[in-house]
């Protein structure tokens, strides 16, 4: 089904050259302010109804991408089109965009106003967009029922009176209250118990089909991303290192970083335990990223070209028709060296 994404005529999300730098206060007065390269030249497209998983280590710019797409922070550069609208900081256009694109945050407690009842929190968005209160309340109750919270019991409660999983359901209901076409999940299930997490993931799958939604799913959990996504985008220090259909990327990862991430997934097979961590240490500081390929300081395949120039996204396997691209100078040299680690049903081709 992922190949249809490539050939589909229109994209509901079209991001081109997205860039964001944050200035850091200089250590001493008069010094040149340092710049954090949070997001550098991110481009991707997404067909309606697809789910794009965005993965990467903490600090790689995943959440910044989400906030940029929501217009919560202003991009330095780049062109973002979502649901037929162009993202701008102009208030009217931004408000119009906000009824099409919604977001669910990681911290289910902090993202609900502690002084507002659950019902009032869900009603807030529609009321701001001019929906009459009675109608907004009705929608809120319907949505609560839809996410599995009985309105009669939960509508009047306050955030501290419900559990974490229930709170995240409320946040999902709130995001859906504006009838969006695209929902961005920023680590939305990361803080939940595993048993609750799978319930919420299944709920998300159902809601997606029911409301014809497109998802951007940000997570550091590779299993979750594999479970929910059609496409996956791997980020490292603010750049895309690999992007492609989820099955292809997980089976035949082309970039050394993606391989390292996949290799560090805890194995389900007790006889093939994950032994030494494939990459060690923290990513370099995004204030002064390495020249050329940003991953080269932790990569096992470095060559001279890696320090000299930044690798561009290119087809991971030139002979394949699948749109699977990776940004690595060593693609040809490392092709075929990947040993699949996980022995589950989807394996076999390698």
């Amino acid at each position, binding site marked *: 089904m992922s190949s249809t994404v490539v050939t589909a005529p229109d994209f509901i999300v079209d991001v081109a050259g997205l860039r964001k730098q944050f200035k850091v206060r200089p250590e001493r007065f008069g010094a040149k302010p340092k710049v954090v390269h949070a997001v550098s030249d991110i481009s991707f497209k997404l067909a309606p109804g697809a789910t794009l998983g965005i993965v990467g280590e903490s600090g790689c710019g995943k959440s910044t991408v989400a*906030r940029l797409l*929501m217009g*919560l922070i202003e991009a330095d550069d780049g062109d973002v089109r979502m649901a037929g609208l162009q993202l701008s900081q102009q*208030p009217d256009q*931004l*408000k119009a965009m*906000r*009824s099409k694109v*919604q*977001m669910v*945050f990681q*911290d289910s407690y*902090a*993202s*609900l*106003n*502690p*002084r*507002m*009842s659950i019902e009032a*929190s869900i009603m*807030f*968005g529609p009321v*701001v*967009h001019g929906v009459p209160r*009675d109608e907004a*309340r*009705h929608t809120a*109750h*319907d949505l609560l*029922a839809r996410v599995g919270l009985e*309105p*009669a*019991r*939960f*509508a*009047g*409660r*306050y955030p*501290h*009176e419900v559990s974490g999983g229930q709170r995240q359901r409320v*946040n999902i209901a*709130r995001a859906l209250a*504006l009838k969006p076409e695209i929902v961005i999940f920023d680590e939305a299930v990361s803080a939940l118990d595993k048993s609750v997490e799978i319930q919420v993931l299944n709920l998300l799958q159902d809601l997606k089909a029911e409301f014809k939604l497109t998802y951007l799913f940000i997570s550091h959990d590779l299993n979750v991303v594999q479970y929910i996504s059609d496409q996956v985008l791997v980020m490292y220090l603010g750049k895309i290192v690999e992007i492609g259909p989820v099955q292809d990327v997980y089976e035949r990862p082309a970039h050394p970083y993606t391989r390292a991430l996949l290799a560090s997934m805890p194995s389900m097979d007790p006889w093939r335990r994950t032994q030494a961590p494939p990459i060690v240490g923290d990513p370099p500081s995004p204030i002064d990223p390495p020249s050329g390929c940003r991953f080269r300081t932790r990569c096992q395949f470095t060559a001279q070209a890696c320090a000299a120039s930044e690798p561009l996204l290119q087809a991971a396997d030139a002979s394949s028709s699948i749109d699977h691209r990776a940004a690595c100078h060593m693609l040809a040299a490392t092709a075929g060296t990947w040993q699949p680690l996980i022995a589950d049903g989807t394996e076999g081709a390698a």
Partner: protein
Amino acid sequence: MSAASLLAEPSPKQSSYWDDVARRLLRDKVSIACMLLLALIVLGALLAPWIAPGDPSMGSVLKRLKPVGTPGHILGTDELGRDMLTRLLYGGRTSLLMGMAPVGMALLIGGTLGMVAGFRGGLVNALIMRTVDVLFAFPSVLLAVAIAGALGAGVGNTLLALTIVLIPPLVRVTESATTQVRSLDFIEAARASGAGDGTIMRAHVLSNVIGPVLVYATSLLSVSIIMAAGLSFIGLGAKPPTAEWGLMLNSLRNAIYSQPLLAALPGVLIFAVSLGFNLLADGLRTAMDVK
């Protein structure tokens, strides 16, 4: 689920934050005692024209400085022979007005400025907060004396002087509370819903900031009452023959050796009101401290 059936069965657990605060406050004996004491004094002042035994400005040279307990004058008479109980009741009207109104006005102005400063941040914050810092550079009593002195004596000028003095601390407390709330995700979620700054401040910031600010304003009431009485005492507040506790304290200070109990009465009331508001603020703070 229809709207009618929802109305028919209200949610079993609908305790809002403020219900909890009220319940906890009413369980605190000290807070209850303070509220009763303050209610008694405020009611006495409000109802003075109807319950006072005499006329606050009617004096008699023959009945000067009668001690507490004199028949016909339960709390005695002052240096001009006016009934003390009547004067204290009427004095409460002026003293409480001069003490409480500035806090209310400063709460409105300072709270708004602080919320805007905290929410907008950046240049707006710098502008408001640095202006407030300049006012902070002066000791509050000195600033009140200076402003009241420059404007001249009178109740209106005292109100203005005290309001100006009370705005800076309220701006600061509101600003710091707002700054804390501003960075929370629910503000960002509200913005992502398409709400503007004004709506977010009204619907989301105010409800989370008002608690600590109200506690602080309650404790400022006691300071304000004392400052108002102090200004009147040094002749910059209410003018004679107006009954006012600070002014009465001043005019009775010559009688402190002959009638010490009589001379202390206005002071006792100032002390009681001030302490009452202070302890009530403490109780309120404890009651609001949920987690």
